[in-house]
């Protein structure tokens, strides 16, 4: 079933300079979709239209048949959680509190016992109990990313957006994050939309790909869309695909 639909969406930050032009596609419930494209192509912008960080100047985005524009912000945050690329709070909030903030859409005045219970469960699930009293600012990049994902999961939403979750991490942490996403998708059935820079991460993780370039976007199944030809069109680099470690693996020609 289609959970998210982009219908003729046009996005811009400045008038007369559209970043995304007339884009339409739909994402299925329970799927993982990777948004690929060069720097500045508008991947993040396109994704931001979903949780109303940016509003289309033409066209509409629908979740479960409802126009995103007509959903109140608080209600929207119970449908979509978002993992930002990074978070640098000005105050040294503890890891526990950073995850508790994920309960904000359900809280009018103060958190209730149920909110604390969900945070405790999430901390256990992510095996980060040893971090919970540390200031968020003092933990490593990989741990921060894990905590931000935990916050999004504590938000208990059917849709999770992630903005380049692996970009600043070392290989070990990249693998850890990719597998966490995969596990959550399998066990909770949440729908994921993730912007990624590494095509191999998309090959490993994603059911579908949205290729974003030159203001347009094309959506397709990962296996169909990830070809030498399309990669060359998208990034202007030569690549080749090979089977490796039970997946299709992409490598590029570094010699320009």
């Amino acid at each position, binding site marked *: 079933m289609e959970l998210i639909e982009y219908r003729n969406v046009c996005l811009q930050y400045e008038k007369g300079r559209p970043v995304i032009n007339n884009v339409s596609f739909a994402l299925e419930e329970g799927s993982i979709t990777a948004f690929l494209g060069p720097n500045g192509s508008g991947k993040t912008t396109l994704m931001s239209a979903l*949780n*109303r*960080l940016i509003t289309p100047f033409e066209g509409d985005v629908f979740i479960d048949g409802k126009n995103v524009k007509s959903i109140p*912000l*608080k*209600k*929207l*945050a*119970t449908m979509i*959680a*978002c993992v*930002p690329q990074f*978070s*640098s*709070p*000005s*105050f*040294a*909030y*503890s890891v526990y*509190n950073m995850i508790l*903030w*994920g309960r*904000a*859409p359900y*809280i009018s*005045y*103060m*958190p209730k016992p149920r909110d604390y219970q969900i945070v405790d469960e999430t901390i256990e699930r992510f095996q980060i109990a040893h971090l919970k*009293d540390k*200031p968020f*600012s*003092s933990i490593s990049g990989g741990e921060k990313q894990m905590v931000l994902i935990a916050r999004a999961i504590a*938000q208990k939403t059917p849709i999770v957006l992630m903005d380049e979750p692996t970009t600043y991490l070392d290989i070990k942490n990249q693998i850890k994050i990719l597998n966490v996403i995969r596990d959550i998708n399998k066990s909770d059935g949440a729908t994921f939309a993730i912007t990624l820079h590494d095509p191999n991460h998309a090959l490993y993780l994603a059911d579908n790909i949205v290729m974003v370039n030159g203001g347009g976007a094309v959506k397709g199944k990962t296996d169909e869309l990830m070809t030498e030809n399309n990669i060359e069109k998208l990034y202007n680099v030569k690549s080749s695909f090979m089977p490796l470690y039970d997946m299709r693996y992409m490598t590029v020609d570094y010699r320009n």
Partner: protein
Amino acid sequence: MKYQNTAKYKKTIEIIMYFIPIPVFLIALSIGPYELSIPQVIDIIFYKISGNTIFGSVLASSAITAFADIRLPRVILSMLVGAALSVSGASFQSVMKNPLVEPYTLGVSSGAAFGAALSMAFSFLTVQVSAFLFAMLSIVICYSIAQQKGEASVISLILAGIIISSIFTAALSAIQLFVDPLKLQGLIFWTMGAFYTTTWSKVLGSIGFMAVGFTLIFIFRWKLNILSLGDQEAKMLGVHPAIYKGIIIFAATLLASSSVAVTGIISLVGLMIPHICRMLFGPDNRRLIPLSMAFGASYLTIVDTFARNMFTFEIPVGIFTTILGAPFFIILLRKVRNAGWN
């Protein structure tokens, strides 16, 4: 285990902190040109309320009058203003994601002082309303100068605050040139920040405005945590930044302006108190706001008790808070690692 012990220990200190204003209130009331014991203080207050005493003190009626008309309103006002400035500072810091802002550094105090002086000198509106209007004007100008795409950097806000502050300070000096010489001395003393002129009418005139400010910030202190993550993350978490920022800035400005209107500019309280509370108990606004309130009330009352009793003449408390605040703040910052902000 070690963690649990520290947590328990901290919790106990935290609870004690909430009650500190009570002994401070009673001790401050007992100190003055006419020394009173704590039971005598309690007796006078009870006598004024109910006509009875608890400890059966016997006091001259002149002492009772002096106490009830001068010392009592003064101590109450110093508690209110201390709490108001601290809560205002803590709220501005969270909502602007900026550990360096407070009513004084944002230019809010200068705006309020100008508004209040304008009202005093030329009977323009009432002092409280005029102070609030100009405080609001200065925060709006300050924020518009500093912000880019809805976010204002730490330094640009401070710089904008300095500009606003200078403009309103200059305008305040200009008022002093035109004002009736009989009003001039009072005006100058007032701009230095003092409780010297406290009367019951000042307490009653500001308490309503402060109650509104305190209530709003207390109710929305959980949202303050979310707002302090920035507009984008607040939106992601379903908290409308424009609406809640507006409410908090309104309330924090009201607290600052209603303080300035009755006591003049008392600087650094709004910076120092929230930071000390953050260093001791962490930055979570659910605790920070009530703690700043209790600690701010106690601090300013203690300082004012010194200001009125240390010498034979009265020293404006604003001078004390600045002199005390600056080095104390530097020492604390250097001493305590992980100061609650990065």
